[in-house]
């Protein structure tokens, strides 16, 4: 809006000048020589005089780059033979990469060397301007929107700002934060036409490396976890309904590839943030969730779950609590938390149990009745309190130490009092803790088996079996704790598993159980 008269022309002239300087051999390899003369020109044109003019200059440059890209793409659509995709891209990048280099140099040289604040402020400003142009373009062009110029600017700017140079290393964490904020603002639920480029950007190898490996004290982990949650939130409603359009399948498959890279290279990251991910992944996304729950620390050796007479409670790691870096109680309303704590301590107020289902229910809409995040939070909170309580009595979680406690009262109440939908979510919240050998896996494995053994209706036992089975019959990977629990269920005669009607409800189901049983025996 109301750019000073002539600013547009001035900017166009300066950008053209800079592109020539950037590509001329005399500018030196990192364009520094050319840059110092160009900054003089910017000064002469008064561009650097005020913050407002600098902002307008960057916005106009971005718009010029974007318009050029659309024009070239348009030309290539008209005469693909003349302008093949490779050539179009080379022409677009000819200007885009020059613009990125200009941004990089202005960020590097703004303020004196030690002053990182001016550098980061300028970076955030420029990123914000590109985001603004992108969002406006996306909203105006709708299905004609093209991600390419913005994808190029972000990925090349990220690459250049991560060059091994001292001035950049010294502001690297703030740079990562700036890009993470930018990508969060551009998350797929907000800018769906940018989703494929967005997944490329967060999957970019040097972005992964910086966020998950090179940044000290894992300070990049919570930021990267937030971006994955943004992705799961976008996919959620579509994955929930199972039928995916082809584009959604491509995005989902891309998500699986990224998660497989994380599972293979950074399993501890998935271990620490599994809770937040499971909160946003729909309960019926079995394989996606199994992939995350299958992660285990690289220095841990998992005993083969099918080892005969495996003594799980003898494993060294079974008594150590896993790290959970999500603030999972945040979702609990304060008074609910107060009553819960009071009940856990004193089994009062007695109404806590009878009110529990109502507290967890959101609506009467089938399939949407319950507050999933609250159920997940309640289950994990009660479980962790129970484990602490057992240890405080000098015991360790086992089929005998977990019973007859206010904690188990709550679980048994939920098991009996909830309807099918609610119990499914409740049992899922427990099954989501069945991971690698740790105290949570052990406690919740015992709890699930105990609820099976103590169930007063076969429907509950059937549902427990279903929850386990649906996680086992999907393609790999399968979490270690899930396998351990299921094997115990079908092997331990105390659970009389094979006597149940539902085990033989259909020939293929009995065959399936028998095949699993054979591989265990």
């Amino acid at each position, binding site marked *: 809006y109301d750019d000073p008269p002539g600013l547009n022309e001035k900017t166009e002239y300066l950008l053209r000048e800079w592109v020539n300087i950037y590509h001329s051999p005399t500018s030196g390899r990192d364009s520094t020589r050319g840059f110092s003369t160009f900054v003089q020109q910017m000064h002469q044109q008064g561009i650097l005089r005020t913050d407002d003019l600098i902002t307008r200059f960057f916005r106009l440059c971005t718009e010029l780059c974007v318009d050029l890209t659309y024009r070239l793409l348009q030309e290539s659509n008209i005469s693909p033979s003349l302008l093949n995709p490779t050539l179009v891209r080379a022409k677009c990048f000819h200007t885009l990469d020059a613009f990125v280099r200009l941004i990089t140099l202005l960020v590097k040289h703004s303020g004196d060397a030690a002053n990182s604040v001016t550098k980061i402020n300028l970076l955030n400003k420029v990123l914000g301007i590109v985001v603004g142009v992108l969002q406006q373009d996306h909203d105006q062009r709708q299905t004609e929107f093209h991600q390419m110029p913005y994808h190029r600017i972000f990925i090349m700017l990220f690459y250049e700002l991560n060059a091994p140079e001292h001035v950049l290393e010294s502001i690297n964490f703030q740079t990562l934060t700036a890009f993470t904020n930018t990508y969060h603002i551009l998350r797929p639920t907000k800018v769906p036409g940018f989703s494929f480029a967005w997944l*490329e950007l967060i*999957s970019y190898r040097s972005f992964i490396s910086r966020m998950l490996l090179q940044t000290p004290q894992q300070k990049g982990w919570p930021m990267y976890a937030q971006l994955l949650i943004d992705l799961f939130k976008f996919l959620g409603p579509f994955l929930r309904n199972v039928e995916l359009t082809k584009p959604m399948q491509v995005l989902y*498959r*891309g998500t*699986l*590839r990224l998660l497989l890279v994380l599972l*293979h290279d950074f399993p501890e990251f998935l271990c620490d943030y599994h809770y937040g991910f499971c909160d946003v992944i729909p309960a019926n996304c*079995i394989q996606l969730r*199994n992939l995350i729950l299958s992660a285990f620390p690289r220095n841990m050796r998992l005993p083969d779950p099918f080892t005969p007479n495996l003594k799980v409670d003898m494993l060294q790691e079974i008594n150590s609590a896993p790290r959970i870096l999500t603030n999972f109680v945040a979702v609990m309303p304060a008074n609910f938390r107060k009553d819960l704590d009071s009940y856990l301590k004193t089994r009062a107020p007695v109404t806590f149990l009878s009110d529990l289902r109502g507290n967890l229910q959101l609506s009467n809409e089938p399939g949407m009745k319950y507050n999933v995040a609250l159920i997940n939070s309640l289950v994990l909170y009660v479980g962790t309190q129970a484990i602490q309580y057992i240890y405080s009595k000098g015991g360790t979680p086992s089929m005998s130490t977990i019973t007859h406690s206010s904690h188990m009262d709550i679980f048994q109440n939920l098991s009996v009092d909830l309807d099918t939908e609610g119990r499914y979510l409740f049992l899922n919240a427990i099954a989501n803790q069945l991971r690698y050998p740790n105290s949570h896996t052990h406690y919740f494995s015992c709890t699930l088996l105990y609820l099976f053994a103590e169930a007063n209706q076969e429907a509950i036992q059937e549902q427990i079996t279903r929850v386990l089975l649906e996680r086992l019959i999907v393609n790999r990977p399968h979490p270690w704790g899930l396998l351990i629990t299921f094997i115990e269920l079908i092997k331990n005669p105390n659970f009389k598993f094979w006597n149940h009607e539902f085990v033989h409800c259909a020939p293929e189901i009995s065959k399936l159980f028998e095949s699993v049983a054979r591989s265990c025996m």
Partner: protein
Amino acid sequence: LGNDLTTLGLNLNSPDNLYHKFQSPFSKQPCRPQDIDFFVPSEYLTN
């Protein structure tokens, strides 16, 4: 039953990290060395 995750083009048994050569979430091919931008000594920028 989900996807067979061993067919997505990632060598899940690789002893090395995969992210080094992760080309794209939409590609089955890992990066080749000539695809990976590298901060080489500036003297190498002969062109």
